[in-house]
């Protein structure tokens, strides 16, 4: 049985899901949510207090004209390419996440689109290092190296390799 995403709280009503049961409705809704999200996110990230960039400023950082940024901030503009999103991500120094999630996961993730939800900070090593586990990871790696994975001709089996990797991570 596959894992299912079970929301911690109720994010939708039965009536809303009934509404989504129509395929045409569902995909029009999904497409618009994604397009609007991209357009709004670019605007909010650009206007975020730490940046306060004009469309011209963001354009300079992407080596593109202001009119190009204006198009990207239009939810109806349907020609946003993956490369465009990479360019924008680099300008904001943010990573990009493109996935094909299941509907429950998608609905939960797309629920929040306020300015506060869309504002994101760029790469910050100090912040990331607060969650780093360098010393623990090193200890685990040493422990794994000492573990005997014998029993398979020619070295460790694939299963053992996976166990090693999982522990090292």
């Amino acid at each position, binding site marked *: 049985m596959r894992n299912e995403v079970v929301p911690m709280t109720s*994010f*939708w*009503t039965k*009536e*809303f899901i009934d*509404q989504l049961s*129509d395929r*045409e*409705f*569902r*995909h*029009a*809704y*999904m*497409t*618009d*949510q994604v397009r*609007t*999200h991209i*357009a*709004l996110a670019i*605007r*909010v990230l650009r206007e975020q207090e730490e940046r306060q960039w004009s469309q011209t400023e963001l354009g300079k950082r992407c080596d593109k004209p202001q009119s190009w940024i204006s198009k990207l*901030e*239009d*939810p*109806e503009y349907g020609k946003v390419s993956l490369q465009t999103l990479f360019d924008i991500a680099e300008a904001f120094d943010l990573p990009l996440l493109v996935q094909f999630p299941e509907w429950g996961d998608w609905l939960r993730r797309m*629920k*929040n*689109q*306020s*300015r*506060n*939800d869309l504002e994101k900070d760029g790469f910050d090593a100090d912040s990331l290092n607060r969650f780093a586990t360098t010393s623990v990871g090193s200890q685990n790696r040493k422990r794994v190296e000492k573990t005997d994975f014998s029993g398979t001709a020619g070295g460790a089996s694939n299963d053992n390799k996976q166990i090693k990797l999982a522990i090292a991570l």
Partner: protein
Amino acid sequence: MAVIWSYRCYLDHSGENVIRKWFDKQPRAVQGKFISRLQTLRQLEPELWVPKPFRWLRHECAGLGEIRFEAGNVQHRPLGFRSDLTFIMVICAIEKSNKFEPANACEVGLRRKGEVQADAKRSCPHDFILD
């Protein structure tokens, strides 16, 4: 999720919700986009109710705003006005060649706005399924 805005719909003289009547006649793809826009806009601070998902109108349409979305090569423009953090939809027009259809959409919209402002019973809370 922080919901900032609420929506209301204009009721005609017979008490019929004209926005719901419009919605029920639309193809499912238009309905899906409309629901999506209402969901998104209600979370946005007033300063984000700007082009392109939304636009406050000027000149002979001043006092009204339009929710802007395209579906099936048709530019839909549900029009309404703001009262505090409530957006009251009064007419659903379309835009062709930078002109509204019906051509008197703004005139009708502003008249309806006046009716709602004079009598709160000429609008009702929206009944679209957003959650």
